[in-house]
């Protein structure tokens, strides 16, 4: 799946946050979006993850020769497949096209928002939404937990995990869904060095295994250098391509 941003603009309370941001995320790998605090990185990530609408501009996903783009005539976050306006089937359930698209990508937020239940059930949640249960789903959950090193804590209550473990659980929750694009918003903010290094190695492994396109934000320059295939910089609301690794 490829993602194209065209002339994205966003204002909050009269203040310009994003100004004419355009970019094509076309190759697999890790894209790192850098910028200072409050520069609009998280807003841009939420817009790309279809959790927020831009004031103007379009977010288009391209997959299998089809363009999937927002339709401003429908209203908030409703998308439709321009080339195929029918609904999609997901594990036997009929889904609206916008929801079907949202289920092919996922975002991990800095405030993870764990559910008040076990580690295992937190990971199972997204799969059960997609009607995935039974042995195949259990395997996906176990694999995701093992990938982030939480397999031994599967029965622990999620709200008793440390900050670093919570962040890793957030990533496991996303990985279990096998998203085509994984958005990570400040995945190592407010966690210790040990967990930062574990999460960085998870991201590197994902890249090596070619699991998903990863688009992440960070304000840590050295981390961006370590992880990025492409480095993007957001300054004064404008998006610039800084470097290709």
């Amino acid at each position, binding site marked *: 799946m490829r993602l194209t941003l065209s002339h994205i603009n966003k204002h909050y309370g009269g203040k310009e946050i994003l100004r004419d941001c355009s970019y094509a995320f076309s190759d697999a790998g890790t894209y790192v979006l850098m910028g200072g605090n409050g520069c609009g990185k998280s807003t841009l990530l939420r817009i790309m993850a279809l959790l927020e609408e831009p004031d103007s501009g379009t977010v288009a996903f391209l997959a299998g020769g089809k363009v999937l783009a927002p339709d401003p005539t429908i209203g908030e976050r409703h998308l439709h497949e321009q080339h195929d306006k029918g609904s999609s089937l997901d594990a036997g359930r009929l889904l609206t096209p916008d929801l079907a698209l949202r289920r092919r990508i996922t*975002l991990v937020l800095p405030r*993870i*928002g764990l559910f008040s239940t076990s580690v295992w059930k937190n990971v199972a949640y997204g799969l059960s939404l997609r009607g995935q249960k039974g042995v195949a789903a259990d395997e996906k959950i176990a694999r995701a937990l093992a990938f982030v090193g939480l397999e031994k804590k599967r029965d622990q209550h999620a709200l008793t995990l440390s900050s670093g473990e919570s962040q890793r659980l957030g990533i496991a929750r996303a990985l279990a869904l096998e998203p085509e694009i994984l958005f990570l918003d400040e995945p190592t903010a407010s966690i210790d060095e040990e967990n930062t290094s574990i999460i960085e190695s998870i991201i590197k492994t994902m890249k090596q295994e070619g699991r998903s396109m990863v688009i992440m934000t960070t304000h840590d320059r050295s981390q961006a250098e370590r992880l990025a295939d492409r480095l993007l910089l957001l300054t004064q609301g404008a998006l610039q391509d800084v470097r290709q690794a």
Partner: protein
Amino acid sequence: MLQYILKRVLLFIPTLLGITLITFILMQSLPGDPVLAMVGERSTPETIARIRAELGQDRPLPLQYLGYLKLLSKFELGRSIHTNRKVADDLLQKFPNTLKLGLTALLFASIVGVGLGIIAAVKRDTVWDRLITLVSVGGISVPVFWLGLALMLIFALYLRWLPPSGMGNGSLLYIIMPAVTLGTFSLSYIARITRSSMLESLSQPFIAAARAKGLPETSVVLKHALKNSLIPIVTVIGLDLGSYLNGAVLTETIFGWDGLGRYALTGILGRDYPVIMGVVLFGAVIFVTINLLVDVSYHFLDPRVRIKESR
């Protein structure tokens, strides 16, 4: 949980004792004499003294209070000074009417109020939100007696759709106007609380996480956000229910509804001490019971409460 409920039930006793003492002192401080109100000011001093003695009101106040407590210990509430009927019997006869009116009003207020609150939160800063805010501010501000009379004027006098007053031997048409009048304030308040509580829930990380995992918006709002907004809403509904079941004096009087509110008003106007004490005590028991039920409901509504309990 059971231990907690038992502890709260045991706390009923000192609470109720305190309420009887305060009500007793307040009643004695009120101007007016129940005996004079009963026999009239033209009665002879001998008659007044005889009746005062019959009612036990010639005894010192502490002894009168202890006498009342003795009565309570036998689960009795005394007899009305004016009708000589047992207060407990009157309360049991009128409570079902108050219960019917209170529950109908609250059902109306809860369903419409929560619905409007959800719409206002989901459609935040739109014309719908502003319209609902306007309606709820209006509902909170309008006096009950004015609303009751206005509804009566429109729906009973002009349109002739609904009966103006009375209880109509259980006909549902008779309860509509009193229930709407009584429930409008709660409806507006519940709508405001639901809106603010929903807005807070919708901004929580787990809601963003649920959306990011592909949960449909209807489920995000109704299943996750609403469930997590319920505690303040249930608290308000519980407090209102407690207040309604104590009798809605104005609504019951305007619509001729034979409930506890009208009974209490008759007691107050006639300085009928046993009636006033009985209504206050009965109301206090209901209020404390509903508060306990609301507290217990938190246990089921919010998993965090369960976690704290188990730690």
